[in-house]
């Protein structure tokens, strides 16, 4: 049992760097306590249990590093919120551009310069698409910063999201080129966003019920 106690303390400090002194100290005192309990006439199993319960919550000691981590996390939080705000603004501007893009075509068609109007429309679509790509690129960078591997649920989500994105783009291009109704086909994108939000909500609901069980 004494040997197991040594193993227990070693395991307790496994992975903790720079704690060799504290480990040695706690190990020695835990062994002292164990020996005393045995001397008092306790059976080894009881002495082992009591000695271990006497150690208490070791995270207090190992905690210094973790605490500084969480402090950093708190400092970083507002930044990521700002980032999110920025992303939202980029997306909102992009959507506004999609909605407004037929205006130059309408106006310039009235003046008999439909070609220039069409160029204006395409330019606005191009800018809007660039904004969307920029905002989603930032999202990817954030994901890269996260060291933890994705859970199966997260990777499923990512796959679904990518599929919806690609499908949306394909549908948009197909509809636009076949119908030439560029002034209305942009609606594919808001619909795509709505579908994604709906899917996310369904997945969230499913996971929540799974956790409850």
């Amino acid at each position, binding site marked *: 049992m004494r040997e197991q106690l040594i193993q227990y303390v070693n395991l307790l400090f496994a992975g903790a760097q720079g704690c060799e*002194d*504290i480990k040695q*100290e706690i190990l*020695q005192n835990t*062994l*002292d306590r164990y020996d005393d309990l045995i001397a008092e006439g306790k059976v080894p199993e009881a002495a082992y249990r009591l000695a271990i319960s006497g*150690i208490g919550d070791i995270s207090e*000691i190992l905690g210094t590093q973790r605490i500084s981590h969480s402090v950093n996390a708190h400092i970083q939080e507002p930044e990521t919120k700002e980032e999110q705000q920025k992303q939202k603004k980029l997306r909102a501007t992009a959507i506004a551009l999609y909605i407004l893009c037929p205006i130059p075509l309408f106006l310039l068609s009235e003046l008999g310069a439909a070609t220039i109007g069409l160029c204006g429309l395409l330019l606005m679509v191009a800018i809007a698409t660039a904004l969307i790509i920029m905002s989603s690129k930032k999202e990817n960078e954030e994901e890269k910063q996260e060291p933890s591997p994705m859970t199966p649920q997260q990777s499923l989500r990512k796959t679904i999201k990518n599929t919806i994105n690609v499908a949306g783009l394909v549908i948009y291009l197909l509809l636009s080129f076949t119908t030439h109704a560029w002034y209305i086909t942009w609606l594919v994108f808001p619909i795509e966003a709505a579908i994604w939000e709906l899917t996310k909500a369904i997945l969230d609901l499913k996971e929540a019920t799974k956790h409850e069980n």
Partner: protein
Amino acid sequence: MSIAGDLIRGHTDAIILARLLRGDSYGYEINKTISTISSGRFELKEATLYTAFKRLEESGCIASYWGDSGAGARRRYYTITAAGKDAYHRLMTEWLETKEIMDKLLRMEE
């Protein structure tokens, strides 16, 4: 533990300093004395004890050195510094004041 452990734990630093004032000692011995004095009603967890040691050492109230125990194992001994003695007297005064106020606050008659 039926007694107010949290209340006593709030004075861990003062308790350790008071022990070390009587001579150099190591973790388990200090804890055993605490247990004996309180008739087994109070005892510190190792983790609490070492957090306090670390705090006191960082603030210069105690110093430590490695010594050998009889059985050949290495033990970390702690000794109180001049700053630690000052801190002890300050904490003792604070405690006496607290005790006096608590006594008055909890007593039935005015």
